[in-house]
Protein backbone atom coordinates (compact mmCIF):
# COMPACT_ATOMS: atom_id res chain seq x y z
CA UNK A 1 0.00 0.00 0.00
CA UNK A 2 1.14 3.50 -0.85
CA UNK A 3 2.52 5.64 1.94
CA UNK A 4 1.39 9.03 0.70
CA UNK A 5 -1.17 10.67 -1.58
CA UNK A 6 -3.52 13.53 -2.34
CA UNK A 7 -6.98 14.10 -0.89
CA UNK A 8 -9.99 15.41 -2.80
CA UNK A 9 -13.33 16.37 -1.26
CA UNK A 10 -16.51 17.32 -3.10
CA UNK A 11 -19.16 18.90 -0.92
CA UNK A 12 -22.34 18.96 -2.94
CA UNK A 13 -25.95 19.55 -2.03
CA UNK A 14 -26.92 15.89 -1.71
CA UNK A 15 -23.64 14.03 -1.11
CA UNK A 16 -20.21 14.60 0.29
CA UNK A 17 -17.60 12.62 -1.60
CA UNK A 18 -14.04 11.91 -0.70
CA UNK A 19 -11.22 10.39 -2.71
CA UNK A 20 -7.61 9.66 -1.81
CA UNK A 21 -5.24 9.12 -4.72
CA UNK A 22 -1.69 7.94 -4.97
CA UNK A 23 0.98 10.08 -6.62
CA UNK A 24 0.37 8.42 -9.98
CA UNK A 25 -3.37 9.20 -9.81
CA UNK A 26 -4.68 5.77 -8.76
CA UNK A 27 -7.62 5.71 -6.35
CA UNK A 28 -6.67 4.40 -2.88
CA UNK A 29 -9.93 5.19 -1.13
CA UNK A 30 -13.33 6.54 -2.12
CA UNK A 31 -16.46 7.41 -0.17
CA UNK A 32 -19.88 8.64 -1.24
CA UNK A 33 -21.93 9.87 1.71
CA UNK A 34 -25.27 11.60 1.91
CA UNK A 35 -25.03 15.11 3.36
CA UNK A 36 -28.34 14.95 5.24
CA UNK A 37 -28.17 18.61 6.14
CA UNK A 38 -24.72 18.72 7.73
CA UNK A 39 -21.76 18.77 5.32
CA UNK A 40 -19.14 19.04 8.05
CA UNK A 41 -20.39 16.00 9.94
CA UNK A 42 -20.51 14.00 6.71
CA UNK A 43 -16.85 14.87 6.04
CA UNK A 44 -15.88 13.84 9.54
CA UNK A 45 -17.60 10.47 9.00
CA UNK A 46 -15.92 9.94 5.63
CA UNK A 47 -12.50 10.83 7.05
CA UNK A 48 -12.97 8.38 9.95
CA UNK A 49 -13.85 5.66 7.46
CA UNK A 50 -10.71 6.50 5.52
CA UNK A 51 -8.58 6.29 8.67
CA UNK A 52 -9.72 2.67 9.07
CA UNK A 53 -8.64 1.78 5.52
CA UNK A 54 -5.37 3.64 4.95
CA UNK A 55 -2.17 2.39 6.63
CA UNK A 56 -0.87 3.95 9.82
CA UNK A 57 1.37 6.93 9.12
CA UNK A 58 -0.08 7.64 5.68
CA UNK A 59 0.97 11.14 4.61
CA UNK A 60 -1.38 13.56 2.86
CA UNK A 61 0.76 15.75 0.57
CA UNK A 62 -2.06 18.05 -0.51
CA UNK A 63 -5.82 18.51 -0.30
CA UNK A 64 -8.29 19.95 -2.80
CA UNK A 65 -11.92 20.89 -2.23
CA UNK A 66 -14.74 21.42 -4.71
CA UNK A 67 -18.54 21.64 -4.67
CA UNK A 68 -21.00 24.32 -3.68
CA UNK A 69 -19.73 24.53 -0.09
CA UNK A 70 -16.06 24.57 -1.15
CA UNK A 71 -14.99 27.84 0.45
CA UNK A 72 -16.48 27.04 3.83
CA UNK A 73 -15.20 23.46 3.89
CA UNK A 74 -11.85 24.52 2.45
CA UNK A 75 -11.39 26.67 5.55
CA UNK A 76 -12.45 23.89 7.90
CA UNK A 77 -10.15 21.16 6.59
CA UNK A 78 -7.31 23.49 5.59
CA UNK A 79 -7.44 22.81 1.85
CA UNK A 80 -4.48 23.76 -0.35
CA UNK A 81 -6.65 24.18 -3.45
CA UNK A 82 -10.27 25.29 -3.76
CA UNK A 83 -11.65 24.59 -7.22
CA UNK A 84 -15.03 25.02 -8.91
CA UNK A 85 -16.89 21.79 -9.64
CA UNK A 86 -16.93 22.19 -13.42
CA UNK A 87 -13.13 22.20 -13.63
CA UNK A 88 -12.85 19.44 -11.04
CA UNK A 89 -15.27 17.11 -12.83
CA UNK A 90 -13.61 17.79 -16.16
CA UNK A 91 -10.15 17.12 -14.73
CA UNK A 92 -11.18 13.64 -13.58
CA UNK A 93 -13.12 12.74 -16.75
CA UNK A 94 -10.20 13.76 -18.97
CA UNK A 95 -7.81 11.81 -16.75
CA UNK A 96 -9.80 8.58 -17.10
CA UNK A 97 -10.95 9.10 -20.70
CA UNK A 98 -8.46 11.35 -22.50
CA UNK A 99 -10.50 11.24 -25.74
CA UNK A 100 -13.72 12.54 -24.11
CA UNK A 101 -15.52 15.29 -26.03
CA UNK A 102 -18.63 15.83 -23.93
CA UNK A 103 -19.20 15.44 -20.19
CA UNK A 104 -22.69 15.21 -18.73
CA UNK A 105 -22.62 15.65 -14.99
CA UNK A 106 -25.94 15.44 -13.21
CA UNK A 107 -26.01 15.89 -9.47
CA UNK A 108 -28.66 16.51 -6.87
CA UNK A 109 -29.27 20.21 -7.42
CA UNK A 110 -27.52 21.00 -10.64
CA UNK A 111 -26.73 19.54 -13.98
CA UNK A 112 -23.93 20.55 -16.31
CA UNK A 113 -22.62 19.89 -19.75
CA UNK A 114 -18.92 20.43 -20.42
CA UNK A 115 -17.52 20.47 -23.93
CA UNK A 116 -13.94 19.19 -24.19
CA UNK A 117 -11.66 19.31 -27.21
CA UNK A 118 -8.14 17.91 -27.23
CA UNK A 119 -8.22 17.43 -23.49
CA UNK A 120 -9.24 20.97 -22.54
CA UNK A 121 -12.57 22.52 -21.56
CA UNK A 122 -13.77 24.82 -24.32
CA UNK A 123 -17.39 25.39 -23.29
CA UNK A 124 -19.84 24.51 -20.56
CA UNK A 125 -23.33 25.25 -19.29
CA UNK A 126 -25.22 24.69 -16.07
CA UNK A 127 -28.94 24.47 -15.39
CA UNK A 128 -30.71 27.51 -13.98
CA UNK A 129 -32.48 27.64 -10.65
CA UNK A 130 -35.01 25.05 -11.82
CA UNK A 131 -34.42 21.48 -10.64
CA UNK A 132 -36.38 19.71 -13.40
CA UNK A 133 -33.24 18.24 -14.99
CA UNK A 134 -31.51 17.10 -11.80
CA UNK A 135 -31.35 14.21 -9.40
CA UNK A 136 -33.78 15.72 -6.94
CA UNK A 137 -36.45 15.53 -9.66
CA UNK A 138 -36.07 11.74 -9.84
CA UNK A 139 -35.77 11.49 -6.06
CA UNK A 140 -39.07 13.26 -5.51
CA UNK A 141 -40.87 11.18 -8.14
CA UNK A 142 -39.50 7.93 -6.71
CA UNK A 143 -40.81 9.02 -3.32
CA UNK A 144 -44.21 9.72 -4.82
CA UNK A 145 -44.32 6.23 -6.34
CA UNK A 146 -43.17 4.90 -2.99
CA UNK A 147 -40.16 3.01 -4.37
CA UNK A 148 -36.44 3.48 -3.77
CA UNK A 149 -34.30 5.28 -6.31
CA UNK A 150 -32.46 2.01 -7.08
CA UNK A 151 -35.73 0.17 -7.73
CA UNK A 152 -36.75 3.02 -9.98
CA UNK A 153 -33.78 2.35 -12.24
CA UNK A 154 -34.39 -1.41 -12.34
CA UNK A 155 -38.09 -1.01 -13.00
CA UNK A 156 -37.52 1.40 -15.86
CA UNK A 157 -35.63 -1.28 -17.77
CA UNK A 158 -38.73 -3.50 -17.85
CA UNK A 159 -40.54 -1.01 -20.03
CA UNK A 160 -40.78 -1.42 -23.79
CA UNK A 161 -43.27 1.39 -24.48
CA UNK A 162 -42.34 4.40 -22.34
CA UNK A 163 -45.24 6.71 -21.55
CA UNK A 164 -44.86 10.32 -22.71
CA UNK A 165 -44.40 12.48 -19.60
CA UNK A 166 -44.14 16.28 -19.57
CA UNK A 167 -40.66 17.01 -18.30
CA UNK A 168 -40.52 20.80 -18.49
CA UNK A 169 -41.30 21.25 -14.82
CA UNK A 170 -41.49 18.94 -11.80
CA UNK A 171 -44.92 20.27 -10.97
CA UNK A 172 -46.30 19.47 -14.42
CA UNK A 173 -44.46 16.16 -14.56
CA UNK A 174 -46.05 15.09 -11.33
CA UNK A 175 -49.59 15.95 -12.37
CA UNK A 176 -48.96 14.33 -15.75
CA UNK A 177 -47.71 11.14 -14.08
CA UNK A 178 -50.78 10.98 -11.86
CA UNK A 179 -52.96 11.47 -14.88
CA UNK A 180 -51.19 8.67 -16.83
CA UNK A 181 -51.34 6.34 -13.85
CA UNK A 182 -55.11 6.89 -13.50
CA UNK A 183 -55.45 6.30 -17.25
CA UNK A 184 -54.07 2.79 -16.73
CA UNK A 185 -50.46 3.05 -17.94
CA UNK A 186 -48.10 0.45 -16.49
CA UNK A 187 -45.80 1.70 -13.73
CA UNK A 188 -42.59 0.69 -15.52
CA UNK A 189 -43.69 2.61 -18.62
CA UNK A 190 -44.40 5.68 -16.54
CA UNK A 191 -40.99 5.38 -14.85
CA UNK A 192 -39.14 4.99 -18.12
CA UNK A 193 -41.19 7.91 -19.47
CA UNK A 194 -39.96 9.91 -16.51
CA UNK A 195 -36.32 9.05 -17.32
CA UNK A 196 -36.92 10.11 -20.91
CA UNK A 197 -38.52 13.35 -19.78
CA UNK A 198 -35.59 14.14 -17.54
CA UNK A 199 -32.98 13.42 -20.20
CA UNK A 200 -34.98 15.34 -22.80
CA UNK A 201 -35.20 18.28 -20.43
CA UNK A 202 -31.44 18.16 -19.84
CA UNK A 203 -30.59 17.92 -23.55
CA UNK A 204 -33.07 20.63 -24.56
CA UNK A 205 -32.39 23.13 -21.83
CA UNK A 206 -28.91 22.74 -20.46
CA UNK A 207 -27.29 21.60 -23.70
CA UNK A 208 -28.91 24.22 -25.97
CA UNK A 209 -26.38 25.55 -28.45
CA UNK A 210 -23.64 23.17 -27.25
CA UNK A 211 -21.66 21.02 -29.61
CA UNK A 212 -22.50 17.52 -28.32
CA UNK A 213 -20.06 14.99 -29.79
CA UNK A 214 -19.09 11.45 -28.83
CA UNK A 215 -17.42 10.08 -26.75
CA UNK A 216 -19.84 11.27 -24.07
CA UNK A 217 -18.98 10.64 -20.43
CA UNK A 218 -21.92 10.49 -18.00
CA UNK A 219 -21.14 11.04 -14.33
CA UNK A 220 -22.57 12.31 -11.06
CA UNK A 221 -25.10 10.65 -8.78
CA UNK A 222 -27.61 10.06 -11.54
CA UNK A 223 -25.22 8.04 -13.69
CA UNK A 224 -25.88 5.11 -11.33
CA UNK A 225 -29.47 4.98 -12.54
CA UNK A 226 -30.00 2.34 -15.22
CA UNK A 227 -33.16 3.94 -16.56
CA UNK A 228 -31.37 7.23 -17.09
CA UNK A 229 -28.45 5.51 -18.83
CA UNK A 230 -30.87 3.74 -21.16
CA UNK A 231 -32.71 7.03 -21.87
CA UNK A 232 -29.44 8.77 -22.76
CA UNK A 233 -28.48 5.89 -25.00
CA UNK A 234 -31.77 5.98 -26.91
CA UNK A 235 -31.71 9.76 -27.30
CA UNK A 236 -28.05 10.15 -28.23
CA UNK A 237 -27.97 7.10 -30.46
CA UNK A 238 -24.88 5.80 -28.67
CA UNK A 239 -24.11 4.54 -25.22
CA UNK A 240 -22.53 7.14 -22.90
CA UNK A 241 -19.41 6.05 -21.02
CA UNK A 242 -19.95 5.78 -17.29
CA UNK A 243 -16.49 6.11 -15.74
CA UNK A 244 -15.23 3.76 -13.08
CA UNK A 245 -15.52 6.30 -10.26
CA UNK A 246 -18.74 7.84 -11.63
CA UNK A 247 -20.18 8.79 -8.24
CA UNK A 248 -17.13 10.63 -6.92
CA UNK A 249 -15.63 12.28 -9.99
CA UNK A 250 -15.68 15.77 -8.46
CA UNK A 251 -13.65 14.60 -5.48
CA UNK A 252 -11.32 12.66 -7.76
CA UNK A 253 -10.77 15.78 -9.87
CA UNK A 254 -10.12 17.87 -6.75
CA UNK A 255 -7.48 15.34 -5.67
CA UNK A 256 -5.84 15.39 -9.12
CA UNK A 257 -5.83 19.20 -9.09
CA UNK A 258 -4.24 19.18 -5.63
CA UNK A 259 -1.60 16.84 -7.00
CA UNK A 260 -1.03 19.16 -10.02
CA UNK A 261 -0.65 22.17 -7.77
CA UNK A 262 2.84 21.27 -6.58
CA UNK A 263 2.00 21.84 -2.92
CA UNK A 264 5.25 22.14 -0.98
CA UNK A 265 3.79 22.06 2.49
CA UNK A 266 0.17 21.18 2.89
CA UNK A 267 -2.11 23.22 5.14
CA UNK A 268 -4.45 20.22 5.52
CA UNK A 269 -5.35 19.64 9.15
CA UNK A 270 -5.38 15.84 8.96
CA UNK A 271 -7.58 13.59 11.10
CA UNK A 272 -7.74 16.41 13.60
CA UNK A 273 -10.70 17.52 11.46
CA UNK A 274 -12.66 14.52 12.77
CA UNK A 275 -12.26 15.73 16.32
CA UNK A 276 -13.15 19.36 15.72
CA UNK A 277 -16.26 20.31 17.62
CA UNK A 278 -17.71 22.48 14.94
CA UNK A 279 -20.05 25.27 15.89
CA UNK A 280 -21.85 27.12 13.14
CA UNK A 281 -23.10 30.56 13.99
CA UNK A 282 -24.09 33.60 12.03
CA UNK A 283 -24.14 37.34 12.43
CA UNK A 284 -25.49 40.27 10.48
CA UNK A 285 -22.79 42.45 8.94
CA UNK A 286 -23.77 46.05 9.60
CA UNK A 287 -21.20 47.69 7.33
CA UNK A 288 -23.79 48.64 4.71
CA UNK A 289 -27.52 48.75 4.07
CA UNK A 290 -27.65 45.22 2.76
CA UNK A 291 -27.17 43.72 6.22
CA UNK A 292 -26.03 40.37 4.86
CA UNK A 293 -26.03 37.27 7.01
CA UNK A 294 -22.50 35.94 7.42
CA UNK A 295 -22.06 32.31 8.42
CA UNK A 296 -19.15 31.50 10.69
CA UNK A 297 -17.74 28.07 11.36
CA UNK A 298 -15.54 27.66 14.38
CA UNK A 299 -14.30 25.02 16.75
CA UNK A 300 -13.99 25.68 20.45
CA UNK A 301 -10.86 27.78 20.12
CA UNK A 302 -11.00 29.71 16.90
CA UNK A 303 -13.06 30.75 13.90
CA UNK A 304 -12.09 28.56 10.94
CA UNK A 305 -14.00 30.00 8.03
CA UNK A 306 -16.72 32.39 7.05
CA UNK A 307 -18.89 32.81 4.04
CA UNK A 308 -21.83 34.81 2.81
CA UNK A 309 -22.58 38.39 1.93
CA UNK A 310 -22.87 40.16 -1.39
CA UNK A 311 -19.42 41.67 -1.24
CA UNK A 312 -16.38 39.52 -0.65
CA UNK A 313 -15.03 41.05 2.53
CA UNK A 314 -15.88 38.10 4.79
CA UNK A 315 -14.80 35.34 2.44
CA UNK A 316 -12.22 33.28 4.29
CA UNK A 317 -11.48 36.02 6.84
CA UNK A 318 -11.16 34.91 10.39
CA UNK A 319 -10.98 38.18 12.32
CA UNK A 320 -13.96 39.35 14.32
CA UNK A 321 -15.89 42.32 12.91
CA UNK A 322 -14.84 45.61 14.44
CA UNK A 323 -17.26 48.11 15.92
CA UNK A 324 -19.41 49.76 13.26
CA UNK A 325 -18.03 52.89 11.63
Amino acid at each position, binding site marked *: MEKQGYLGIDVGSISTNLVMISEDGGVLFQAYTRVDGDPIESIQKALSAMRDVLPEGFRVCGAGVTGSARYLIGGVIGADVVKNE*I*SAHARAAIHLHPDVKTIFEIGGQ*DSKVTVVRDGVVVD*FAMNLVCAAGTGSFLDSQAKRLNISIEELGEKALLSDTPTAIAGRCTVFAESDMIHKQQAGHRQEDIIMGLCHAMVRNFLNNVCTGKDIESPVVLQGGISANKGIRRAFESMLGSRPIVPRYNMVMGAYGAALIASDAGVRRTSYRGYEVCDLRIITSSFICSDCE*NRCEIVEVSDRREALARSGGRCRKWEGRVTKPGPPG
Partner: protein
Amino acid sequence: MSGSKRTDYRSVAMPRALWYHLYPGMWEVFFRSLGLSVVVSAKTDRATVERAALISEPEHCLPLKLHDAHLHGVVGAADVVFIPRVLSTLTEHIACPKLGSLPDCAVAQFGDETPILTIDIDENKRSVHRSMLELGSELGFRRNATRAAAAAALSAMKTERNGLKTCIDREDDYFLILAHPYILHDAYVSAPVFGKLDAMNVKWLFPDYGCESIESGPIKWDACGIMHDALLRLDAGRCVGVIHLSAFNCGCDSIVMEVFRGLLWEKNIPYMTLVIDEHEGRAGLDTRLEAFVDSIGWRNTLDNAV
Protein backbone atom coordinates in the same frame (compact mmCIF):
# COMPACT_ATOMS: atom_id res chain seq x y z
CA MET B 1 -52.22 64.73 -15.66
CA SER B 2 -52.93 66.85 -12.61
CA GLY B 3 -55.05 69.68 -11.30
CA SER B 4 -52.19 71.93 -10.26
CA LYS B 5 -50.37 74.18 -12.68
CA ARG B 6 -47.16 72.52 -13.81
CA THR B 7 -45.03 75.61 -13.17
CA ASP B 8 -45.95 75.20 -9.52
CA TYR B 9 -43.79 72.11 -9.11
CA ARG B 10 -40.94 72.92 -6.81
CA SER B 11 -39.61 69.42 -6.39
CA VAL B 12 -39.45 66.31 -8.51
CA ALA B 13 -38.86 62.68 -7.50
CA MET B 14 -37.64 59.79 -9.63
CA PRO B 15 -36.96 56.09 -9.18
CA ARG B 16 -33.31 55.05 -9.46
CA ALA B 17 -34.05 52.19 -11.84
CA LEU B 18 -34.32 51.14 -15.49
CA TRP B 19 -34.45 54.32 -17.63
CA TYR B 20 -32.65 56.30 -14.94
CA HIS B 21 -29.51 54.25 -15.64
CA LEU B 22 -29.79 54.80 -19.39
CA TYR B 23 -28.96 58.46 -18.81
CA PRO B 24 -26.52 58.38 -15.90
CA GLY B 25 -26.47 61.66 -14.00
CA MET B 26 -28.52 63.52 -16.60
CA TRP B 27 -32.02 64.00 -15.27
CA GLU B 28 -31.19 65.26 -11.82
CA VAL B 29 -28.83 67.89 -13.24
CA PHE B 30 -31.52 68.99 -15.70
CA PHE B 31 -34.17 69.52 -13.03
CA ARG B 32 -31.76 71.01 -10.52
CA SER B 33 -30.53 73.52 -13.10
CA LEU B 34 -34.15 74.55 -13.54
CA GLY B 35 -34.32 75.30 -9.84
CA LEU B 36 -36.30 72.25 -8.72
CA SER B 37 -35.19 70.16 -5.83
CA VAL B 38 -34.67 66.55 -6.84
CA VAL B 39 -35.30 63.37 -4.88
CA VAL B 40 -33.88 60.17 -6.34
CA SER B 41 -34.70 56.91 -4.57
CA ALA B 42 -31.83 55.40 -2.59
CA LYS B 43 -29.56 52.86 -4.26
CA THR B 44 -30.90 49.32 -4.47
CA ASP B 45 -30.30 47.31 -1.32
CA ARG B 46 -31.76 44.17 0.12
CA ALA B 47 -34.84 46.00 1.35
CA THR B 48 -35.53 47.23 -2.20
CA VAL B 49 -35.33 43.68 -3.54
CA GLU B 50 -37.62 42.43 -0.78
CA ARG B 51 -40.11 45.19 -1.48
CA ALA B 52 -39.96 44.40 -5.20
CA ALA B 53 -40.79 40.75 -4.52
CA LEU B 54 -43.73 41.86 -2.41
CA ILE B 55 -45.36 44.43 -4.68
CA SER B 56 -44.33 43.60 -8.22
CA GLU B 57 -45.70 41.12 -10.71
CA PRO B 58 -43.73 37.85 -10.25
CA GLU B 59 -43.29 37.30 -14.00
CA HIS B 60 -41.49 40.63 -14.56
CA CYS B 61 -37.74 40.76 -15.12
CA LEU B 62 -35.67 41.86 -12.11
CA PRO B 63 -34.97 45.41 -13.43
CA LEU B 64 -38.69 46.02 -13.91
CA LYS B 65 -39.48 44.67 -10.46
CA LEU B 66 -36.84 46.97 -9.04
CA HIS B 67 -38.42 49.90 -10.89
CA ASP B 68 -41.71 49.14 -9.14
CA ALA B 69 -39.98 49.08 -5.76
CA HIS B 70 -37.99 52.28 -6.38
CA LEU B 71 -41.12 54.05 -7.63
CA HIS B 72 -43.09 52.93 -4.60
CA GLY B 73 -40.36 54.46 -2.46
CA VAL B 74 -40.54 57.97 -3.96
CA VAL B 75 -44.28 58.50 -4.32
CA GLY B 76 -45.11 61.47 -2.11
CA ALA B 77 -41.47 62.47 -1.64
CA ALA B 78 -41.87 65.46 -3.99
CA ASP B 79 -44.56 67.50 -5.78
CA VAL B 80 -44.38 65.26 -8.83
CA VAL B 81 -42.85 61.95 -9.91
CA PHE B 82 -40.96 61.98 -13.21
CA ILE B 83 -40.99 58.93 -15.49
CA PRO B 84 -40.13 59.48 -19.16
CA ARG B 85 -41.70 57.32 -21.85
CA VAL B 86 -38.56 55.80 -23.36
CA LEU B 87 -39.32 54.51 -26.85
CA SER B 88 -35.84 54.70 -28.34
CA THR B 89 -32.42 55.83 -27.13
CA LEU B 90 -30.67 55.36 -30.48
CA THR B 91 -31.68 56.32 -34.01
CA GLU B 92 -33.00 53.48 -36.16
CA HIS B 93 -33.49 51.39 -33.02
CA ILE B 94 -36.21 50.88 -30.43
CA ALA B 95 -36.12 50.40 -26.68
CA CYS B 96 -37.48 47.38 -24.83
CA PRO B 97 -41.26 47.89 -25.18
CA LYS B 98 -41.76 47.58 -21.43
CA LEU B 99 -40.11 50.98 -20.94
CA GLY B 100 -42.79 52.69 -23.02
CA SER B 101 -45.55 51.65 -20.66
CA LEU B 102 -43.96 52.82 -17.43
CA PRO B 103 -45.61 56.28 -17.17
CA ASP B 104 -49.06 54.78 -17.78
CA CYS B 105 -48.46 52.02 -15.27
CA ALA B 106 -47.40 54.63 -12.74
CA VAL B 107 -50.55 56.70 -13.36
CA ALA B 108 -52.70 53.59 -13.01
CA GLN B 109 -51.02 52.62 -9.78
CA PHE B 110 -50.28 55.91 -8.06
CA GLY B 111 -52.36 58.45 -10.02
CA ASP B 112 -54.50 59.21 -6.96
CA GLU B 113 -51.50 59.93 -4.79
CA THR B 114 -49.19 61.95 -6.99
CA PRO B 115 -49.09 63.62 -10.37
CA ILE B 116 -46.82 61.82 -12.85
CA LEU B 117 -44.70 63.92 -15.19
CA THR B 118 -43.55 62.37 -18.43
CA ILE B 119 -42.01 63.15 -21.82
CA ASP B 120 -41.45 60.97 -24.86
CA ILE B 121 -37.86 59.94 -25.52
CA ASP B 122 -37.72 58.75 -29.08
CA GLU B 123 -34.42 59.24 -30.89
CA ASN B 124 -36.12 58.28 -34.14
CA LYS B 125 -38.11 61.53 -33.92
CA ARG B 126 -35.88 63.89 -31.97
CA SER B 127 -32.75 63.86 -29.85
CA VAL B 128 -32.95 63.52 -26.07
CA HIS B 129 -31.63 67.08 -26.00
CA ARG B 130 -34.74 68.29 -27.83
CA SER B 131 -36.91 66.18 -25.57
CA MET B 132 -35.47 68.04 -22.60
CA LEU B 133 -36.17 71.40 -24.27
CA GLU B 134 -39.76 70.36 -24.86
CA LEU B 135 -40.15 69.18 -21.28
CA GLY B 136 -38.81 72.51 -20.02
CA SER B 137 -41.24 74.46 -22.13
CA GLU B 138 -44.16 72.23 -21.06
CA LEU B 139 -43.23 72.99 -17.49
CA GLY B 140 -43.42 76.69 -18.32
CA PHE B 141 -39.71 77.56 -18.05
CA ARG B 142 -38.17 80.20 -20.28
CA ARG B 143 -36.30 78.98 -23.28
CA ASN B 144 -32.90 80.24 -22.13
CA ALA B 145 -33.18 78.59 -18.75
CA THR B 146 -34.20 75.29 -20.36
CA ARG B 147 -31.35 75.43 -22.86
CA ALA B 148 -28.78 75.99 -20.15
CA ALA B 149 -30.26 73.18 -18.06
CA ALA B 150 -30.25 70.72 -20.97
CA ALA B 151 -26.64 71.58 -21.82
CA ALA B 152 -25.56 71.12 -18.22
CA ALA B 153 -27.44 67.81 -18.08
CA LEU B 154 -25.78 66.42 -21.20
CA SER B 155 -22.35 67.45 -20.02
CA ALA B 156 -22.95 65.86 -16.60
CA MET B 157 -23.90 62.60 -18.31
CA LYS B 158 -20.78 62.74 -20.46
CA THR B 159 -18.58 63.15 -17.39
CA GLU B 160 -20.35 60.27 -15.70
CA ARG B 161 -19.85 58.03 -18.73
CA ASN B 162 -16.17 58.90 -19.08
CA GLY B 163 -15.60 57.11 -15.81
CA LEU B 164 -16.68 53.81 -17.40
CA LYS B 165 -14.21 51.36 -18.85
CA THR B 166 -15.25 51.16 -22.48
CA CYS B 167 -12.11 51.38 -24.65
CA ILE B 168 -12.43 47.94 -26.22
CA ASP B 169 -10.30 48.86 -29.23
CA ARG B 170 -7.28 49.84 -27.20
CA GLU B 171 -6.99 47.35 -24.35
CA ASP B 172 -5.56 43.82 -24.29
CA ASP B 173 -6.38 40.61 -22.42
CA TYR B 174 -9.77 41.70 -21.19
CA PHE B 175 -13.23 40.22 -20.76
CA LEU B 176 -16.04 42.12 -22.42
CA ILE B 177 -19.14 42.37 -20.24
CA LEU B 178 -22.45 42.64 -22.07
CA ALA B 179 -25.38 43.87 -19.99
CA HIS B 180 -28.10 46.44 -20.22
CA PRO B 181 -27.05 49.71 -18.56
CA TYR B 182 -29.69 49.26 -15.85
CA ILE B 183 -27.94 46.06 -14.82
CA LEU B 184 -24.41 47.47 -15.05
CA HIS B 185 -25.19 50.61 -13.07
CA ASP B 186 -27.23 48.95 -10.35
CA ALA B 187 -24.40 47.93 -8.08
CA TYR B 188 -26.57 45.64 -6.00
CA VAL B 189 -27.21 43.53 -9.07
CA SER B 190 -23.81 43.69 -10.76
CA ALA B 191 -21.34 43.96 -7.86
CA PRO B 192 -21.23 40.21 -7.10
CA VAL B 193 -20.07 39.61 -10.67
CA PHE B 194 -17.58 42.47 -10.87
CA GLY B 195 -16.31 41.71 -7.37
CA LYS B 196 -15.67 38.09 -8.34
CA LEU B 197 -13.86 39.11 -11.55
CA ASP B 198 -11.71 41.53 -9.57
CA ALA B 199 -10.97 38.85 -6.99
CA MET B 200 -9.74 36.62 -9.84
CA ASN B 201 -7.57 39.48 -11.14
CA VAL B 202 -9.14 39.65 -14.56
CA LYS B 203 -9.64 42.85 -16.51
CA TRP B 204 -13.15 43.63 -17.76
CA LEU B 205 -14.67 46.33 -19.99
CA PHE B 206 -18.10 47.40 -21.27
CA PRO B 207 -19.31 48.43 -24.70
CA ASP B 208 -19.83 52.19 -25.01
CA TYR B 209 -23.55 52.69 -24.44
CA GLY B 210 -23.06 56.44 -24.86
CA CYS B 211 -22.37 56.20 -28.58
CA GLU B 212 -24.58 58.49 -30.66
CA SER B 213 -25.23 56.10 -33.51
CA ILE B 214 -24.11 52.74 -34.87
CA GLU B 215 -24.21 51.25 -38.30
CA SER B 216 -27.59 49.76 -38.95
CA GLY B 217 -27.45 46.03 -38.29
CA PRO B 218 -29.88 43.16 -37.90
CA ILE B 219 -30.70 43.93 -34.27
CA LYS B 220 -33.15 46.75 -33.72
CA TRP B 221 -33.20 46.95 -29.93
CA ASP B 222 -30.99 49.84 -28.86
CA ALA B 223 -28.74 48.40 -26.15
CA CYS B 224 -28.59 44.99 -27.83
CA GLY B 225 -27.66 46.72 -31.10
CA ILE B 226 -24.77 48.46 -29.36
CA MET B 227 -23.61 45.14 -27.89
CA HIS B 228 -23.78 43.53 -31.33
CA ASP B 229 -21.86 46.41 -32.87
CA ALA B 230 -19.14 46.02 -30.23
CA LEU B 231 -18.94 42.29 -30.94
CA LEU B 232 -18.51 42.93 -34.67
CA ARG B 233 -15.48 45.06 -33.91
CA LEU B 234 -14.07 42.65 -31.33
CA ASP B 235 -10.54 41.39 -31.91
CA ALA B 236 -9.86 37.82 -30.77
CA GLY B 237 -6.25 38.77 -30.18
CA ARG B 238 -7.29 41.32 -27.56
CA CYS B 239 -10.55 40.18 -26.02
CA VAL B 240 -10.21 36.79 -24.29
CA GLY B 241 -13.87 36.17 -23.55
CA VAL B 242 -17.35 37.66 -23.48
CA ILE B 243 -19.67 37.42 -20.48
CA HIS B 244 -23.31 38.27 -21.10
CA LEU B 245 -25.08 39.25 -17.88
CA SER B 246 -28.78 38.98 -18.52
CA ALA B 247 -31.87 39.38 -16.39
CA PHE B 248 -34.01 36.26 -16.18
CA ASN B 249 -36.96 36.53 -18.58
CA CYS B 250 -35.40 39.24 -20.79
CA GLY B 251 -37.06 38.76 -24.16
CA CYS B 252 -34.61 40.91 -26.14
CA ASP B 253 -31.58 39.11 -24.69
CA SER B 254 -33.04 35.65 -25.26
CA ILE B 255 -33.17 36.36 -28.98
CA VAL B 256 -29.86 38.18 -29.43
CA MET B 257 -27.95 35.59 -27.39
CA GLU B 258 -28.20 33.12 -30.27
CA VAL B 259 -26.92 35.77 -32.70
CA PHE B 260 -24.04 36.64 -30.35
CA ARG B 261 -23.18 32.98 -29.83
CA GLY B 262 -22.90 32.40 -33.58
CA LEU B 263 -20.89 35.54 -34.18
CA LEU B 264 -18.40 34.79 -31.41
CA TRP B 265 -18.14 31.16 -32.48
CA GLU B 266 -16.90 32.39 -35.85
CA LYS B 267 -14.47 34.76 -34.17
CA ASN B 268 -13.29 31.98 -31.85
CA ILE B 269 -13.97 34.03 -28.72
CA PRO B 270 -15.52 32.12 -25.78
CA TYR B 271 -18.98 33.36 -24.80
CA MET B 272 -20.86 32.73 -21.58
CA THR B 273 -24.29 33.88 -20.50
CA LEU B 274 -25.05 34.48 -16.83
CA VAL B 275 -28.70 34.81 -15.94
CA ILE B 276 -29.50 36.79 -12.81
CA ASP B 277 -32.66 37.17 -10.79
CA GLU B 278 -33.56 38.17 -7.27
CA HIS B 279 -32.45 34.91 -5.70
CA GLU B 280 -29.56 35.50 -3.40
CA GLY B 281 -27.49 32.40 -4.11
CA ARG B 282 -24.02 33.40 -5.22
CA ALA B 283 -22.50 29.93 -5.36
CA GLY B 284 -23.73 29.19 -8.89
CA LEU B 285 -22.50 32.55 -10.11
CA ASP B 286 -19.04 32.05 -8.62
CA THR B 287 -18.80 28.54 -10.07
CA ARG B 288 -19.65 29.72 -13.57
CA LEU B 289 -17.24 32.64 -13.48
CA GLU B 290 -14.42 30.54 -12.06
CA ALA B 291 -14.97 27.77 -14.60
CA PHE B 292 -15.13 30.24 -17.48
CA VAL B 293 -11.88 31.92 -16.50
CA ASP B 294 -10.35 28.45 -15.91
CA SER B 295 -11.37 27.16 -19.33
CA ILE B 296 -9.86 30.21 -20.99
CA GLY B 297 -6.61 29.59 -19.16
CA TRP B 298 -6.65 25.99 -20.43
CA ARG B 299 -7.49 27.11 -23.93
CA ASN B 300 -4.50 29.44 -23.99
CA THR B 301 -2.24 26.62 -22.86
CA LEU B 302 -3.57 24.59 -25.78
CA ASP B 303 -3.04 27.43 -28.27
CA ASN B 304 0.51 27.93 -27.07
CA ALA B 305 1.24 24.23 -27.33
CA VAL B 306 0.07 24.09 -30.96
